[in-house]
Structures are given as structure tokens and as C-alpha cells.
């Protein structure tokens, strides 16, 4: 709890990162109609996929920053040495990443959806799929951040390492939303979320020990 409060405090005092990643997403969404067509009939079927891809990208791009500070000032070393279970630290970092990166996008989804001419019911399913899917993105992003923290060009490396792992989430999330909530995809997405929740923090903890010995 204390760890989570600290993360939120740090985030609120320097909101630039979260705002930038949100701005990035809105901007990218605004570019698509310019590049493709303003015609609502052609934009509407693309909406769910585009917003999902943009969410995925902005999560990937923000991931390395969420750990770089702790690595540079030595907090990460102290967290690894602390009496707290390391998996819990990693889980909290993932939650913080989710709050700073995915949550603002989730809240903006109705506006983004409107920009892409999506009807309300599709926006609702889109948001539902993001609620279930985006935590998986954050868990994987934290794993990637831990793998690359302290390396040269970690911000370029991280998406290469992690994007393939996000494919199932992307597929299940977009399918669930486009099929209007077909139960099978929803269950699978929920199962994937549970699986990621119970495994990835431990994997990230293993990597954290490697990261501090660099």
C-alpha cells in the first residue's frame, strides 16, 4: 500500500509523462482520419482496432520511463534489498504504469471513439475490453522495462522485446469488442489476465535482481 501511494504521489507531482502519453494517443487517433478518409462509414469499422493499437503503443512507449527514474536514483536497488517481497514491488510498479498510461486512455475512449465515428454500444464494448486487457499490457510492459532498464537505447529495445507477447491480448481484446461481447473471447481474456497476474510479477522480480546487478 505504502509503495502504491509513493508511486501515485510521484506521478501526481510530475504529471508530464502521463499527459504526454495521452496526448500522443489522441494525436495518433486524429491522424488516421486525415490519412485514410473522413467518411464515417469507412472509419467506424476501424475504430476498435485503432484504439487498441494506440493503447498498446502508448503503453510500450511509456514503459521504460516508469522505471528509469527508480533505476537512476538507486531506489530500485533499495527495493530489491528491502524486506518487501519483490513480486509485490513489481506488481505495484505495473499498477502505477497502468494508472499513468492506460487509465487516462480508458477514460478518453468515448472521445476517441467519437472521433472515429463509433456508435455508443461499440464504445462500451471497447471500454470493457480495455478494462480487462490493458492490465495485461501493463504487466508485460513492466517486465520489458525491467529487462531493458539501464541499457543503451532501452526505449527502442523494449517494444521489440515485448510487442510479440502482447499479440494474444490484442487479438482477444479486439475480437471481444468487435463481436459485441461474445462470451468465449471475454472468458479467454479474463483467463489471460488472471494468468498474467499470478505469473508476471514473479518473472519481473527475477529480472529485477538481474537488473540491479548490471
Amino acid at each position, binding site marked *: 500500500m*505504502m509503495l502504491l501511494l*509513493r508511486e501515485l*504521489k*510521484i506521478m501526481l*507531482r*510530475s504529471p508530464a509523462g502521463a499527459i504526454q502519453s495521452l496526448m500522443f494517443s489522441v494525436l495518433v487517433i486524429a491522424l488516421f482520419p486525415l490519412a485514410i478518409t473522413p467518411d464515417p462509414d469507412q472509419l467506424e469499422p476501424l475504430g476498435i482496432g485503432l484504439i487498441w493499437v494506440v493503447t498498446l503503443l502508448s503503453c510500450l512507449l511509456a514503459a521504460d520511463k516508469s522505471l528509469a*527514474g*527508480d533505476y*537512476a*536514483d*538507486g*531506489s530500485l*536497488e*533499495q*527495493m*530489491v*534489498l*528491502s*524486506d*518487501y517481497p519483490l513480486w509485490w514491488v513489481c506488481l505495484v510498479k505495473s499498477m502505477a504504469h497502468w494508472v499513468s498510461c492506460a487509465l487516462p486512455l480508458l477514460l478518453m475512449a468515448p472521445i476517441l471513439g467519437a472521433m472515429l465515428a463509433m456508435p455508443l454500444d461499440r464504445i462500451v464494448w471497447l471500454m470493457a475490453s480495455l478494462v480487462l486487457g490493458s492490465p495485461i499490457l501493463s504487466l508485460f510492459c513492466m517486465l520489458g522495462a525491467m529487462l531493458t532498464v539501464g541499457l543503451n537505447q532501452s526505449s527502442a529495445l523494449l517494444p521489440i522485446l515485448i510487442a510479440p507477447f502482447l499479440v494474444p491480448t490484442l487479438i482477444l481484446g479486439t475480437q471481444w469488442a468487435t463481436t459485441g461481447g461474445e462470451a468465449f473471447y471475454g472468458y479467454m481474456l479474463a483467463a489471460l489476465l488472471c494468468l498474467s497476474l499470478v505469473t508476471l510479477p514473479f518473472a519481473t522480480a527475477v529480472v529485477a*535482481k538481474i537488473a*540491479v*546487478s548490471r
Partner: protein
Amino acid sequence: MLQIESLSCFRQDRCLFKDLNAKVLPGQALQIVGENGSGKTTLFKILAGLFEEYDGRVITAAGSLYLGHRYGVNDQLTPVENLKFLLKLNEIQLAPGLLMDALARFQLSAELDQPCAALSEGQKKRVALARLILTSARIWLLDEAFSALDAPGRAVLSEVCQAHLASGGILIFSSHQGIPEFAAAAQLRLEVGS
């Protein structure tokens, strides 16, 4: 007690040190001496348990506290918040008064409610060092803790360290400056490129 037995460490094919032996008893200090690149920081990381690729044995009979070149002070948080966090990492709960006293000892009373980004490098280091006053760890691993501090800061730090030794603690430290108070401490010398 802290004991090092035939400790060797290679990094990327380069031998940092070989067959180090040392034994530090409660109440004793040990200074790690060596030029830049001789492996001091790696040795500290090994002693702290952050670095595991070594041969030999390290025996520590008590909890340790490691302060390295990067000492864990976040720029967005105030000195009090930082100190609270660092202490809570080791599950130490304290009355707020004690926390203030520790910061006051390191002459930080005036800067308590501004983010550490506004502090100088030396002041940030003092925030991390204030932890020493409150910790229950018996082994202190201070890698270059005296650098970036001004003369009064160094004086406070050596007082705190001496009190720690007097109460039966163990101090392992490295320093490029001479610290007169610890001139008599045992030394462990690391050579470059052996």
C-alpha cells in the same frame, strides 16, 4: 560479524579481484581502498547481496544497509517522504519526531517540505544518510558516503558512524578523501588489473 573468504570476481573476462579475505568483528571498521575501476563498487554490491556472480564465500551474521553511489532519494518526494519510504522498505515504523530529529542532525530542517529536486547533491545525500541514525541494521556498507558532503556534513557522518561502532556495529566504507577519524581502521586494498 562479516567474513569474506577467498572472494574472487570476474566481470566480462576481466579479473576484478582474486582471493580476498577479511573478517570484521562487531565494533570494527574496514576501509576498502583502491583506485577507480578496481572493483570497489562491485565488492560493495556483492556484500549487499546485489551481485551474485562471484566465487568464494561471504558470511554476514546480521542485516545490512547499503548506500551506494545512487542512494535512493527520489526527486519528486520531500526529504521526509523519502526517508519514511526508505525506512519502511525495511519495515521500520517510527514516530514522526524521530524522523525530524534525524533530518535535523544532518542540518536539513529548513528543506523539509520541498521536493528533493530543489536540493543540492550534498543535501540529497544527507537525506539518505539520515537513515543511518534510525536503522536497526548492524552492518553498514557505505560506498563513497563521504563524497559530495561538506566539512560539517562529513563531521556529522563520522560521529554517527563512530556511535554505530561504539554500539557494536560493523562499518565497511570506501572513501577517496582521508577521514581522520577512521585513519586507524583496517584496510582492504584492491589493485587494478590483476
